[in-house]
């Protein structure tokens, strides 16, 4: 090669071409795969909600595939809408619209900022109400879904996910079914700011070793920061839903079916 590859002009032109070329390739690939990625994220988010509402386990939903998950969701969902922190309904959520962790993050700022929050409520046909929570774990965001029995503050189930908590410790919020099962049957206390507690050192227990039905569960051993982060996320979000739940639970008697 007789060209001087070390001249300034050559270097500038060379890098410009390389960078532009790479940018073009990446933009093209990103655009052409975007639809598929969004479909995957949507099915994942929906299956997390359905896991919390105890329709199936996360693993089973994953095996069903995206199309089947969306079909099951369309079959089971009753109504979905957003509410403000005053508990009043703001707008309907369309069937093909989901609250991805990105949207939850935006609402997390609104809740903490004290204004403009529009947080989703998903009510399935069997009356189970699912609401999301979002917050900061140790290394990155943690989020999840908590399902309540029809018109009640009793938790039916919960599912949590995280971006980068430590495997074997903080990652247990997602991977340990026993941790998630601890929520089942406990009650959220919407009358205080401390709606739900993940207690380090053990939640109160009955004489036979079962957890007392209250708003407390055990934290994860060795994952204090993740447990605290999740606890704060739950308090913040369920606190934001307090007005909504108080309203619903007072209007409809707890014994009513459907």
């Amino acid at each position, binding site marked *: 090669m007789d060209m001087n590859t070390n001249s300034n002009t050559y270097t500038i032109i*060379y890098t410009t071409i390389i960078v532009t070329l790479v940018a073009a390739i990446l933009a093209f690939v990103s655009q052409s795969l975007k639809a598929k990625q969004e479909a995957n994220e949507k099915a994942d988010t929906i299956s997390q909600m359905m896991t919390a509402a105890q329709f199936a386990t996360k693993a089973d939903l994953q095996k069903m595939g995206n199309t089947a998950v969306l079909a099951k969701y369309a079959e089971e969902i009753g109504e979905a809408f957003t509410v403000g922190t005053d508990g009043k309904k703001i707008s309907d959520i369309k069937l093909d619209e989901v609250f991805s962790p990105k949207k939850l993050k935006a609402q997390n700022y609104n809740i903490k900022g004290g204004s403009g929050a529009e947080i989703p409520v998903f009510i399935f046909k069997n009356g189970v109400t699912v609401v999301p929570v979002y917050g900061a774990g140790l290394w990155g965001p943690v989020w999840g879904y908590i399902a309540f029995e029809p018109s009640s503050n009793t938790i039916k189930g919960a599912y949590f996910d995280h971006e980068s908590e*430590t495997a074997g410790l903080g990652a247990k919020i997602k991977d340990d079914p026993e941790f998630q099962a601890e929520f089942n049957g406990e009650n959220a206390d919407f009358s205080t700011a401390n709606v739900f507690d993940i207690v380090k050192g053990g939640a109160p227990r009955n004489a036979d070793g079962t957890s007392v039905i209250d708003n407390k569960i055990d934290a994860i051993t060795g994952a204090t920061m993740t447990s605290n982060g999740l606890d704060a996320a739950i308090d913040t979000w369920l606190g934001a839903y307090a007005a909504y739940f108080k309203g619903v639970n007072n209007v409809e008697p707890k014994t009513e079916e459907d």
Partner: protein
Amino acid sequence: MDAKLKETILNPIFKGNPITVLVLGICSSLAVTVTMKGALVMALSVIVVCGISSLILSLLRNTIPSRVRIIVQLVVVAMMVILVDQILKSFEATYAIDKQLSVYIGLIITNCIVMGRIEAFALGNKPWPSFLDGVANGAGYGMILLIVAFFRELLGSGTLFGFDVLNWLGYTPNNLVILPPFALILLGCIVWVQRSIQKDLQEK
């Protein structure tokens, strides 16, 4: 196949293994070896990134201005890593595993093996041997990843590739094995075994 090419392929697998001999790529080998599935996807991703980046940069090697060669390498490797990440996110079958590997797919770009092989080999050799060198180094890395993941998933979860192996026998999964320090202990053991077989690696 001539002897030199054979050496290019076989050397990184055992004698010059990037993890156990060059001690590169340790961070990700501690982080992604909790399950075999994760380790396998990570290994394949590194093989693809390493092989194709080496190929591209070897093709470009005579045109790259030497003052900005690291930047050019970085741009090409980054492109490959993003492509792999985007593709993994797009398939139903790999979406969950990509989520589990989270930042570590993106962090392949900081894996010293990739840039190390490009700088040491691809910039001075023809495309075909460079491609093989990249693939072989990725495979050497992947092999250690799978060995570590085998023990960590078997002892830490009682499963292999998600299938129950020990749990039905009443095995209680050992949580220590899932934590990163155990991966380092295991890696140390692998280095120990290799050095006792390969005497010339021992320091006098």
